[in-house]
Structures are given as C-alpha cells and as structure tokens.
C-alpha cells in the first residue's frame, strides 16, 4: 500500500485491540496503527507530550475512539480535540460497544465524523473494521499535516 494514513486507536481493552488489529492485518492495514490505552495517553500523543515527547507533530489520518476509557473518557477527548484549532482537522470515528442513543447524540454534537457500534458477530465486526480502515486510511484524503506512508 502506497498511500496509507496513520490510524490512532484509542482503546483500553486489549482483546478488542487484538481483534481489531487482526481484522486490519487481514487487509494489510495494521502496520501504521498506533494504539493508546486511555484518553490521557491519546491527548499526550496528540499534543506530543509525556511518553510522546519525542514524536514529530504529524496528525493521524483518523482517530478511532472508544467512549468508555480510563482517566479521560472518549467524549472528553473528542471535546478537547474538536475545540483545538489544529487538532480539529483530524477525522474522529467513535468505535464503541454501546447502542446508547445519548452517547451518539453527544458525539455528533461535539462534531464527530463517524459513529460505529462494534457488532458482536465477528464477521460483521471484521467487515466494519475493514471498511473503516479502507475508507479512512486509503480512500479518504486526510487533512494537510497528516502522516502519509
């Protein structure tokens, strides 16, 4: 793959991470996935601080964001990102277990770019992840300043 955007995945559940990576692997999309385990780490990554102090400040092509996260939860991360002049260019897709309507409404109000409920069925899950990966990392033209491989 020549034009592959970096995917920032914010997910605290290692099993979900593994399943997602497996799904992406099948389509050779897993290489440029950066996984962080909670909201604080996600913000550290985006602001190049803490453990990510040495990182160059490129923006990810897409951020896959779980809502139920330790420390800083997904909606807070979303709110911070969408209210930052630079960061708000990053497309954010909420990837959650929950069907809760109020989460969805709150996310859209904060300016989320997509909202995906993780299907229980593995095939559906793989399909969803693959389509997400293909669309955001390959088809979609990311905003200026994103990492291109």
């Amino acid at each position, binding site marked *: 793959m020549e034009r592959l955007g970096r995917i920032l995945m914010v997910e605290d*559940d290692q*099993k*979900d991470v593994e*399943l997602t990576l*497996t799904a992406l692997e099948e389509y050779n999309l897993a290489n440029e996935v950066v996984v962080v385990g909670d909201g604080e780490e996600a913000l550290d990554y985006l602001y190049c601080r803490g453990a990510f102090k040495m990182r160059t400040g490129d923006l990810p092509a897409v951020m896959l964001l779980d*809502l*139920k996260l330790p420390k800083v939860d997904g909606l807070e991360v979303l709110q911070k990102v969408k209210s930052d002049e630079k960061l708000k260019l990053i497309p954010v897709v909420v990837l*959650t*277990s*929950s*069907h*809760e*309507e109020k989460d969805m409404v709150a996310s859209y109000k904060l300016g989320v770019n997509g909202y995906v409920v*993780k*299907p*229980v*069925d*593995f*095939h559906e*899950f793989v399909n969803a992840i693959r389509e997400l990966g293909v669309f955001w990392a390959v088809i979609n033209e990311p905003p200026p300043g994103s990492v291109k491989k």
Partner: protein
Amino acid sequence: MARSNANVQKAPSVVLRYGLAIASFAIALGLALLAQGFAFRNVEVPLFLFAVALTAWFGGSGPAAVTVVLSIVFFDYFFTEPRYTFYVSASELPYFIVFISFALVVAWFSAVRRRAERDLLLARDQLQLEVEERTQQASLLDLTHDSIFVRDMDNLIVYWNRGAQELYGWTPEEAIGKRSYDLLRTVFPAPIDDINADLLQSGRWEGELKHTRADGTDVVVASRWSLRRGEQNQPAAIMETNNDISERKRREDEIRGLNRELASRSTELEAKNKELEAFAYSISHDLRAPLRHMSGFAELLQKKASSVLDEKSQRYMLMIQESAKRMGDLIDDLLAFSRIGRVETQKTLVNLEQLVQEALSEVRQETDGRNIVWSIGTLPNFYGDRSMLRLVFVNLLSNAVKFTRTRPRAEIEIGCDQGNKDEVVVYVKDNGVGFDMKYINKLFGVFQRLHQSQSFEGTGIGLATVQRVVQRHGGKVWAEGLVDKGAIFYFSAPKP
C-alpha cells in the same frame, strides 16, 4: 286581636259618631232640665261640657263641634234670660264666649288625648308585629345547619341556635349567660387582642378555631364573626357562625401526609431510575464486549485450527459463536425494552401510514423470496412518540412475516377499526400459524415464547416491547388467535 280592635276604634261610622254627639247632648239637656225642675241651679254648664268632652273623646272633633253648637243654642233657649227664645243680650255675650271657648278647649284636649292614645295603640301594634317577625327570624336561624351564637361585648352568650346545640352539645338554657371562651375552651390561631382589633376595625373576622364540646371532644371550626353596632355606633354584640371542619382538616392532613410520602417515593424512584439507567448503560458497554471477544476468538481459532478439528469440534465452535450471537441479540433487545420504560416519550403527530412503510422497509430482508400479499388500509394520524411507535410496527410486522413463513401464500393485513370516538384501534392480521388462546396471558410477557426456537427464532421481547410502548401511550394491546388459522394483534390509543 289587637289589630282588629284598632280598626274598629280607628273608623267608627259617621252615623255612630254624630249619633253619639246628639245623644250625649240630649242626655245632658235632659239631665239639665231635670235638675232645673228640681230647682238645682247652675248644673247645666258642667253637664253640657261633660257631653262635649264625651263626644270629643269617642266621636272626634266634628261631632264635638256639633255638641258645642247644640249645647250653646239650647243653653240659650232654656237656661238664659229671656228663656225660650234664641235671643242673646249684649251683656250675656262674654258669658257665651267663655262657655264656647271652654267647650272648645275641652273638645280640643280630649281630641288631642284621643289622638295620642290612638298613636300609642298603633305603635303597640307595630311593636307586636315586629316582635312576631323577629321571633320568626330567630326560629329561622334555628333551621340553619350552621352553628350560630351571639355574645355581648363581655363575651357572654346571649343567643344560641339549634345548630350550636347540635355541634357543641349544650342547650340554649345551658349556654346563654356563660362566657363563650370559657364554655368552649376556645383555642385561637392568633392573639385574641389582634383578632378583636381586626374585628373592631373591619366589623368582621374569619379564621379557624379549636373548640371543646360538652362531651370533652375537640372540634375544629371555620369561624366567622360579625360585629353588631348599637345606635351610637358603639360595638354591641358579636355574632359567631361556626362550621365543623374537623373532617376536612383530618383529610387535609391525610393528603399532606400522602403528598409527603409521594414526594419521598418519587425521589426514591428517581434515584432507582438513575441507578437502573447506569446499570443499563454499563450492560450495554461492558456486557457486549466479552461476547464480541468470545465470538471473535472462537472464529479466529476455528480459522486457524480448522484443518486439525474434527467435524464434532467444528460444530462446537459453531455453537459457541451462535450462542454468543444470540446473547448479543438478547442484550440488545432487553436494552431496547428497558429504554422504552426509562426515556421520556416525545409526542408529536405521527403519520401512521408513513410509519408502516418505514417498518415495512425494515423487515424487507426477512421477506426475500417469500410470497406475501400485503393489504394496508387507511390509517389515521396518531399522537405519540415516533421512534417508539415505529418499534411497535416493526415488531408486529416482523412477527407477522415470521409466523407466516410456513404458508405458500402469506396474507398480512394492516388496518384501523373506527371503534369508538375516543380511541384509535389499529390491527395487524396474518394467516400464519396462530396461537392457542389458552396461552394468551403469556403472549405479552418478557421472555415468554409460544413456539420452540428451532421452528421460530426470537428473543421473546418483541410483544413485551409493543405492550410497553402502547401502555406508555395510554392504550391497550390484545390479540386473537387460532392454532394454524392466523392471529390478529390490536392496539388502541386515545385519539389526539
């Protein structure tokens, strides 16, 4: 009696009155002539004056005047010189004038006296009438259900009606003359001086008092006081009207208590609801994830190890995945069901026909390759929560599609019964496998299923959801079915 006497005295006939004048004069003349015959001197003048006075008294001034004239003429004729003529000598003129004046004065006096007495009688009659009227009014006060008593400015009871006797238990004889506050052991809502000041200023006072009855029990009354003023505008008496409101007060207290309880219950309920919401939220987040992992890793395992797994093991893997999927469906349905109970309904005017079309497109994938004849009648507009009502149709239509699966030609009808003017009744009718009416009470229960899952899949929450939505709209659901002959599901709701 008094009145009829007064009438007779007031209007004796003219004949009688003038007859009296002539008769009294004639008697006086007769007596005078008789006295003259016996040689008594100077009796005639007093006799005539007596006749004048008598006539004035009983006959009035007109007849008295007649008596005076007659007396003078016949006095002149019989008793002054020259006798038996009407001649009056100049020297006797003053005598006549004095006589006339005296007679007139006597007549005037008796007329005035008479009139005064007549006025007096009239006043007495009027007084009697008034007393009669007042007595009647007082007995009217006895007829009222209110308890009324009157006390003077020293709070001594001067009047006590039957209502007061019934309410407090004392007879008027026992109550009158007692100090009202002492008798009733009044408990005032405010200092009595304030109440009295209020009463003196405005002439009225209203409030709630606590009294004690003759038998020692307490009674709460709504009390209204009116001040009566005397002729010099000085406060004269207070009329106190009391109504027993003990029962009302008791009920008010009861209602207040119930309201308090209700408020605390609803706070409790609200807290429970919040808890439930948090619980449901947590389920939807946390329970689905392990299921996804189970199904995901089982799938991965199967993919990786399919070459070494025998047929039986392959089937076990498949069953793990199916179970995880089913568990996921159950959780989703249960969450949707609990959400209906938790969220507020947002009511708008909903076009049911449009809603049915939407529901139809949602169940479309279940109808692929099936021969289904849909007949959709005219449906009214409905006042309700759109997304919830949509769930009703999706569930009912999907059921109808599911349970007609064994039919080569399925017939599903959606229509509206214009039953009565207060409610809308919508039905969904199919020619599917139906159900036995003896299980009707299980039809709308959560997790209740009337078919084995290998013949018809399902979580058993659909109809429970339908029922809950309809009930939240103030309506009812019911169904009719026959085994192998189809089913009709109805729901009703009040018209907008």
